[in-house]
């Protein structure tokens, strides 16, 4: 009897284990793992895989996420795709952040023609152009807005905010932009979208980001101060946030709106007095937990598993990428590319980011997911959403307070 029970116990343990190793759907995830967007993105993707597997997997199969580091470089990114496709034999890909690395993956992605749900890479000039039009790039589902999508959504957002809050009037915009691809594409988009119909007067100047060895913003801030902008916007990296504010304070530069647009903010920025009423562009903030149950569910699960707060919206994009892919595989009943592409085209996914993701054509590719970013503001140490109004968590505090 004991022997029979022991055999039964072994069988009960062995059967699911066998099923998981022999009957899984492998997904390759590629991020820059030394960066917080990659670290938290991959962690959030693993959380999504865990949730899906706990609820029975996809079509009776368990998901397995195999993570690779692209180091933010094109050659390493290409090697990661080759390894995942030929050694691990994954059936689909997710991930991505830096455009310079993403563009290195594209030739290999195209060669294997497996479905990709991309979480980053906003540069249309290189990534979207390298992907090319449909049908050659139909395997590629791009979640993050392209740079021109972001510019258009900011223009739309500021128009809406000025209409709803008549005390906020913007005529003059100054953009301080880091001299690399990110800053330059922000400058081009700002000139095009805000300056086109002459409703706004635009000026701008580049600076060398502290991330890349810079850190002296006096020239660009003096130029901005002379211009007397209603909206001062800077496009740089997290390392620029505090020094820019310190130097603005030193020269008593107080535009009516002070807005930063880095991909991520320094940890603890909200606890700095300098953060008071600084506005920002982004996709998500923990304050959305109060209004969006999906956001709260993700946030609570992430904090419970990793004992840290998700500090970047790239975590949610990666989480969404897994969920969208799993739903697509479920609907298609296969990971075969043509069927899966067709299934993903029917996506209607209620994202913790506060919007329903569907895929529509963009300027070049056929499958673009999110096209809007949000306008937020640091209020009492927290990021509050100002626009879109359906996701708003607070009203704007205006104008930016004078330095004391």
């Amino acid at each position: 009897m004991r022997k029979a029970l022991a055999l039964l116990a072994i069988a009960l343990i062995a059967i699911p284990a066998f099923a998981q190793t022999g009957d899984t759907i492998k997904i390759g995830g590629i991020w820059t793992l030394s960066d917080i967007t990659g670290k938290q993105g991959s962690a959030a993707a693993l959380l999504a895989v865990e949730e899906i597997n706990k609820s029975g997997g996809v079509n009776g199969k368990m998901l397995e996420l195999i993570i690779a580091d692209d180091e933010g470089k094109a050659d390493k990114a290409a090697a990661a795709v080759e390894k995942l496709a030929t050694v691990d034999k994954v059936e689909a890909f997710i991930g991505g952040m830096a455009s310079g690395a993403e563009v290195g993956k594209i030739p290999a992605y195209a060669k294997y023609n497996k479905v990709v749900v991309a979480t980053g890479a906003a540069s249309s000039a290189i990534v979207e152009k390298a992907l090319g039009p449909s049908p050659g790039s139909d395997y590629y589902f791009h979640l993050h807005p392209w740079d021109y999508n972001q510019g258009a959504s900011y223009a739309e957002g500021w128009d809406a905010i000025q209409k709803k809050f008549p005390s906020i009037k913007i005529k003059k915009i100054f953009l301080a932009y880091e001299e690399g691809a990110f800053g330059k594409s922000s400058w081009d988009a700002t000139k095009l979208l805000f300056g086109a119909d002459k409703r706004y007067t635009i000026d701008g100047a580049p600076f060398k980001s502290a991330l890349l060895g810079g850190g002296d913003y006096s020239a660009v801030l003096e130029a901005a101060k002379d211009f007397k902008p209603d909206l001062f916007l800077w496009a740089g990296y997290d390392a620029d946030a505090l020094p820019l504010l310190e130097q603005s304070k030193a020269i008593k530069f107080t535009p009516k709106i002070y807005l930063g647009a880095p991909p991520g903010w320094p940890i603890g920025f909200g606890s700095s007095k300098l953060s008071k009423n600084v506005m920002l562009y982004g996709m998500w903030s923990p304050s959305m937990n109060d209004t969006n149950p999906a956001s709260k569910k993700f946030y609570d699960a992430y904090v419970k598993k990793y004992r840290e707060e998700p500090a970047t919206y790239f975590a949610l994009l990666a989480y969404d990428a897994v969920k969208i892919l799993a739903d697509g595989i479920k609907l298609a009943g296969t990971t075969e590319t043509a069927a899966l592409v067709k299934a993903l085209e029917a996506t209607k996914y209620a994202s913790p980011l506060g919007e329903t993701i569907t895929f529509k054509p963009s300027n070049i590719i056929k499958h673009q997911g999110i096209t809007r970013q949000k306008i937020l503001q640091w209020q009492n140490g927290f990021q509050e959403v100002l626009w879109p109004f359906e996701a708003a968590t607070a009203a704007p505090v205006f104008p930016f307070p004078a330095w004391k």
Partner: protein
Amino acid sequence: MNRNLARVVATLLGALAVALPALAGAYPLQVARNVMLYMALAITWDMLLRSGQISFGIAGLFGLGAYASILGVIRAGMPAWASIPFAAAFSALAALLIGYLILRLRGMYFSIVTLALAEIFRIVIHNLHDFTGGPEGIVAPQGVIFGGSASALYWLALGGLAVALGASIWFERSKFHFALTAIRDNEIAASTSGVNIFSWLLATFVITSGIQGLLGGIFVQSYGFATPDSVFSADFTLLPLAMALLGGIHGTVGPIMGAVLLGVASEWLKLQMPYGHLVVYGIIIIIVILFMPRGLYGLARKMARPAEGRAE
């Protein structure tokens, strides 16, 4: 006997390198391409170092070649394959002009000027926005050379390495070796012995820069795009330098050993610890440079010498 054995080993390794696409999959071939690229850059850096001049300009001339290649295709309508020798010629010509101005400098003055090259070229590319694509970069409309065939791209990279190896061996076996060694040992003695120091240095700088430009052309055609941040990356200066120092300087074998070890170690560490490999990789480089200043090849020769003595 030793020389014959070395020739046999080199021939076997060469044959294995050529035949690798028949034996390995796409991933090992991609890793091999990366290793060969850095190996070739390490060799060219070492070739100039044999004169005693330390150059930090690799990324500058590599990036210049990369842009010459992609702009040659996009703006001048060159075939992709022809843009690669064009990239070499363009970088060599740039090096001729720059070298004429800076090769009177010595020691750290020369090094600092070469360090600025990548930054100067990068800023120029940034500001010629309409022609170069500016900071956002530029994409080759025809995509990757050879339709992205893993084998063809591997052989292209192997071809670039063969050029660097051939030039390095030629340097070791020609008058370059004597001239550069004499310059490194004592410039005054070399000069009084009839060595035209400036001409030898200029020739070396132009040849090594031309190869670096060639490798930039191969890189950019293998990925089908160029951005200033990717092709002028400090990695293209610092990694070859670390590889040559690890393997051993003033010869062809040392940079080969260093590139194989660091290149393979980098990829292996990444597989073992995806989240912390760069830290371990950096620590390995620091330890090796601190404790093995003559490199692995130097250490191996030092260990082999007593044994050779006993055999005699």
